[in-house]
């Protein structure tokens, strides 16, 4: 979301600036030549007299108006969401000093947990998703469910003990037993 915002924000700002410049140009131009004949009476950059005629013809009930309004509202909603969701997504860790802020990303935590889980005996494959609140591990292994889940949970908890995370995430482990010959 932050990347989207980095691209969108200057574009929106430039669009606002362009709209302002066009508004000034058209208003000043229309002011300075009020007595021109009808045929020449057109906008300098924007053909606004044609737009004016079209807008005067349409009523609020006419066909494209509600559709355009809904599209505008949806675009606005998306912009608001981009703005609100472009927060920093990082996990805080305890630093050795108050003047030191330590952060890492959920992706790094997931990678750490994944390496630890895959190094467990009897695990053939594992996928991990991590956020500040929860670490979810889905693993496939040879031994029976209970035992494998217990050993994976123990290894992940051991890893979390070593990381000075501000907030310790909840660990949830799902295990699928692998059938067939080893």
């Amino acid at each position: 979301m932050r990347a989207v915002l980095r691209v969108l924000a200057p574009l929106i700002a430039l669009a606002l600036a362009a709209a302002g410049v066009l508004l000034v140009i058209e208003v000043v131009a229309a002011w300075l030549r009020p007595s021109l004949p009808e045929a020449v009476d057109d906008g300098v950059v924007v053909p606004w007299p044609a737009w004016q005629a079209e807008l005067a013809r349409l009523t609020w009930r006419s066909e494209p108006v509600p559709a355009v309004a809904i599209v505008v509202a949806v675009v606005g909603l998306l912009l608001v969401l981009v703005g609100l969701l472009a927060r920093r997504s990082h996990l805080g860790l305890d630093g050795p000093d108050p003047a030191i802020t330590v952060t890492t990303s959920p992706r790094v935590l997931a990678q750490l947990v994944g390496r630890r889980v895959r190094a467990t005996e009897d695990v053939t494959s594992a996928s991990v998703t991590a956020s500040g609140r929860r670490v979810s591990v889905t693993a496939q292994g040879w031994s029976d469910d209970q035992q494998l889940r217990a050993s994976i949970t123990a290894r992940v908890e051991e890893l979390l003990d070593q990381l000075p995370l501000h907030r310790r995430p909840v660990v949830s482990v799902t295990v699928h037993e692998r059938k067939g010959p080893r």
Partner: protein
Amino acid sequence: MSAASATSGLRKRARAAVARSAAGDRSLAVLVGGLLLVAGTLVALLSYGVFGAGRSARPLLDPLIIEALRAQALAARLVAIGAGLALAVLGVVWAARSVRPEPRPDLHLTGLPDTRIVIDSTAAADAIGHQAAALPGVGRARARLVGPEQRPALRITLWLADDADVRAVLAALEREVLAQARESLELDALPVAVRLELDAVTPPPRVA
């Protein structure tokens, strides 16, 4: 200033150094998006006759409004020009702020009279980065100075080895790198934002 508020100020500056602030961009997006959302919703409701069938049958460019503007032509023009200028200035300022690169403050030392010593931002940051990369458990490190020139802060990214002990690495960073940097750069306080990443590892062979 009491010690407690100094500490909390340092902590705040360290937290601000974690990443470039997106507050301006975010408020712009929320403001413009909110206006579009409200305007679009109101027009849609009007169009579907929520505010009365008679109102929705009026033309978009209402003759009543045109008449009112014609009656106050000068005022309407001045307001339009003022609004246009305000939009243009605001838009350009906003765009410039959001594409401007993040400042890298140089450091000014005041050790000797009659002499001004300036340490280039990149040089200082690279020196700290090299020292940090030499710590045990750290594969790579990158540092840069951020913030205003009077109150610089350090942002440092550490790529940790797989078996690194995070607590030990952070303690060594504070003890061996940052303490020395504060001393040699003559900074009483240097807020630091550390970002931890994982160094790429070559996977062990699947088959022995």
